[in-house]
């Protein structure tokens, strides 16, 4: 899960190398261990993301943050790609934009995202991305799969119909809460997030009921019980703060 290179503690003896490269024709500078996504954001260049969340490790799952690098045939996810000296990155070419739209459309076809009757309607990152990328319809056939809803937990429920497999829940549960209740099973399009050994959430022995997974979920897949359409507003402010406090415990502010 933790693919992100560990940030080294910098001292005078092993300083982080500074690089200069180009994003969208602009000269930018970066530390070698900063992702292209991070550097772009530092420079006010916006790249759409879905699985990325500040405070969690990167996974490169959703592919929405793809960018073009001059001399590289493949499009690369900017959240897990690191700069090289003199690299030339393009974040908004027609090719990149076209593929981002296709990726988003495929996400909509894979499950049953019925926005109009969703607890997260109006507060959903997937719904917002469609507006941002100008997706007014989906050009691929919808699969309309049959997925379950697990409401066995006393306070939360999961609707797999609305899951985009970003695995933020898995990461926050493992990396922040330290419980690792969530994980993933299956492959490709049949993948599904599970609690413990694929058992009802309510019977999980490891779940602490902290609700972090619910708050980081970008869609209405994870929600608090008792919320009706458009009522589920996620609160994510705790995450960078928790990270900061953990860093202080470790006697390091650099985590």
């Amino acid at each position, binding site marked *: 899960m933790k693919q992100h290179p560990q940030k080294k503690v910098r001292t005078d003896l092993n300083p982080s190398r500074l690089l200069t490269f180009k994003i969208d024709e602009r000269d930018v500078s970066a530390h070698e261990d900063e992702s292209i996504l991070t550097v772009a954001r530092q420079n006010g260049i916006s790249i759409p993301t879905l699985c990325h969340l500040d405070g969690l490790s990167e996974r490169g799952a959703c592919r929405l943050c793809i960018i073009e690098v001059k001399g590289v045939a493949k499009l690369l996810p900017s959240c897990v790609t690191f700069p090289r000296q003199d690299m030339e990155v393009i974040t908004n070419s027609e090719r990149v934009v076209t593929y981002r739209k296709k990726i988003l459309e495929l996400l909509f076809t894979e499950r049953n995202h*019925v*926005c109009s009757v969703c607890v997260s309607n109006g507060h959903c990152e997937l719904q917002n991305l469609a507006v941002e990328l100008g997706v007014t319809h989906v050009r691929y056939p*919808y699969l309309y799969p049959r997925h379950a809803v697990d409401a066995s937990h006393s306070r939360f429920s999961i609707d797999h119909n609305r899951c985009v497999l970003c695995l933020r829940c898995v990461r926050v549960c493992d990396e922040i809460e330290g419980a690792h209740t969530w994980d993933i099973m299956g492959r490709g399009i049949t993948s599904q997030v599970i609690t413990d050994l694929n058992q009802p959430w309510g019977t999980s022995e490891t779940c602490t009921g902290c609700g972090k997974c619910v708050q980081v979920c970008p869609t209405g897949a994870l929600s608090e019980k008792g919320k009706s359409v458009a009522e589920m507003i996620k609160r994510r402010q705790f995450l960078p703060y928790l990270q900061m406090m953990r860093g202080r415990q470790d006697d390091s502010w650099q985590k």
Partner: protein
Amino acid sequence: MAKIRLATTWLDGCSGCHMSFLDIDELLIGLAEKVEILFGPLVDYKEFPEHADVTLVEGAVSNEADKKNIVMIRARSGILVSFGDCAITANVPGMRNRYPVGEVMKRAYVENADSVPAGNGGVRSEAAGVAFQTVPPLCQKARPVHEFVPVDVFLPGCPPPPEAITFLLTELLAGRIPDMTGRTRFGA
């Protein structure tokens, strides 16, 4: 200036998009001078016209009649607009797609049927369910309009907000194909 010939229709929808169309309020008066409404739930013509310049289609393609009608509507329309989420994604009508048609019918008309129907004078109904000879059979799945015929403009929303409908019609009246990016979204 010749009036634009407008038709509106619904397939498998709830009429919410048409209600939102009415919600453009006083703009309807100005619109009436520029637009001739040929067909739709808001007017009383029975036959779809031979030719409409613009047609707004609400609702998903859900039964055999929808399938037949949408081909006819496409052939007789200049600009075809997918009007609202049901036409674009199948939306709420598509929520039955996860279940076999037989199961859906049984749930709706047998298991959930009132044993004492309204207007039956408090008398229990003997018939379990309804006979379906006179209504078009449901397709296995409700599907978006553009999976059957080419669509020119997509207007998402459940329903699309009146402002977006106004923008769409204004652009069409000006002879432009509207770009709806950022003006409306999937969902309410």
